[in-house]
């Protein structure tokens, strides 16, 4: 069995080029749709954590490929932007590559895999390890925008619960976990409270990434295509993971360091390296790992 470690050593950056997809508008969407999404985005920023409905359009990629995030990016992006797209922390998965190519073609924007070079970052399942700045916008692909959906299937009811700030059911559900398992078991899409008001789904990022959302200097935008919702967290806004005084929120930790770059502070993926089930741990954020190795950091190379 061969070892496959998804960490490219070569950069996949491309330069800006004139948008070359004949017959399509800049960034694919028509102007009326962009205006509608743009208005929804402005209201989303004004009401942090609140889900604004929008008239989602059919996109040339299936749901599950981040059509909500793609529509938000298409409404936001301009010819001077530099776009990075990640999926599970990596720039080179099929999903990330397709989305990056889509915008390189339809908007002619430059693309990069270097977090620090990007002005717009579209993501599924991770927040980059390198702290984001005021000059960046982070766009999340969201499958299920409603944090209360598992507890209450009716949209009219969850809308009422948000309006009345009735979040008891969420606290009860988390506390049931503690009663059963001694801790809160959710490790992804761990609910947060935004600016002390709306409970919000951070999308299926690991809870390891939740603290990065809190008072982040970058603007955070969320798009759910199938469910037709947009929401936002403005820069420097409080984002607190729900917890209890006797069970404070905690993130994942590893005893191992990254085998490739030696990082002790990054989210690690477990990789099986042989048919005996031998494991090694590597950074999920492939750009972070590569930049560390380029800077001379080394891990122990994993099991010998």
């Amino acid at each position, binding site marked *: 069995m061969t070892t496959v470690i998804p960490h490219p050593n070569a950069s996949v950056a491309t330069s800006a080029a004139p948008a070359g997809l004949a017959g399509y508008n800049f960034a694919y969407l028509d102007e009326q749709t962009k205006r509608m999404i743009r208005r929804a985005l402005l209201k989303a920023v004004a009401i*942090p954590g609140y889900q604004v409905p929008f008239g989602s359009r059919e996109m040339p990629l299936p749901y599950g490929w981040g059509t909500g995030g793609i529509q938000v990016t298409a409404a936001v992006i301009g010819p001077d932007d530099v776009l990075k797209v990640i999926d599970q922390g990596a720039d080179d998965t099929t999903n990330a590559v397709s989305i990056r190519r889509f915008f390189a073609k339809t908007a002619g924007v430059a693309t990069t895999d270097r977090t620090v070079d990007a002005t717009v970052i579209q993501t599924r399942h991770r927040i980059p390890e390198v702290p984001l700045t005021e000059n960046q916008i982070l766009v999340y692909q969201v499958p299920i925008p409603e944090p209360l959906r598992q507890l209450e299937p009716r949209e009219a009811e969850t809308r009422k619960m948000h309006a*009345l700030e009735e979040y008891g059911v969420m606290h009860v559900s988390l506390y049931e976990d503690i009663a059963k398992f001694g801790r809160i078991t959710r490790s992804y899409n761990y609910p947060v409270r935004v600016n002390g008001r709306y409970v919000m789904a951070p999308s299926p990022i690991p809870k390891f990434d939740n603290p990065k959302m809190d008072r982040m200097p970058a603007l955070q935008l969320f798009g759910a295509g199938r469910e037709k919702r947009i929401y936002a967290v403005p820069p420097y806004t409080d984002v607190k993971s729900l917890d209890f005084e006797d069970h404070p929120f905690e993130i994942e930790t590893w005893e191992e360091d990254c085998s490739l770059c030696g990082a002790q502070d990054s989210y690690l993926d477990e990789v099986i390296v042989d048919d005996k089930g031998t494991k090694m741990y590597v950074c999920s954020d492939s750009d972070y790992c590569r930049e560390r190795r380029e800077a001379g950091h080394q891990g122990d190379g994993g099991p010998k």
Partner: protein
Amino acid sequence: MTDTIDLRPGFADPVIEAQNVFRLVLDAMARPGRIATIPESLQPPSPLSVGAAAICLALADHDTPIWLAPEFRTPSAIAFLKFHCGCPIVDVPANAAFAIANGATVPALDQFAIGDDAWPETSTTVIVQLDDLAVGDGLVLSGPGIETTHRLNARGLRVDVWGEWRANQGLFPCGVDLILVAGNRIAALPRTTTVSEN
């Protein structure tokens, strides 16, 4: 005498200019009190400022009724907005998605749509034209989008607006959002921004 209306042109490159103006407004809304400068590509009919006109061209269309304060209801301004945005002009501020008024005479903020608790995004975005807008002494702003405080000097607003603003903040998640405009300079005050006069 003549019935000819001076219809000024819109954006020369509508797709790219609308995107650029939107990004400036988005950044202004995300960082309340930071001033964004809109390129001087439009020559809108008086009394519409470059900033107010560009915001309308970028964001308004037949889905967004606009309310104009009386001094903005000139044949050329109405023709400009109707032709380039296709937006209905409404008589009642509470029916407007966008409103344009002067700082000295802007109606009481509770005259505009405030949305409701289940649909707070249905409130009016009020574009307020001022004499001047500058970073520096004057208002002290805090809240989401602001690391510590932002300072903003907004000249030409009637003084009792800030009392109404505090009441507006008390309506959260409902409430209007403001975009202050002086010429081609804009700054936004979303409903979450706390304003104190110093």
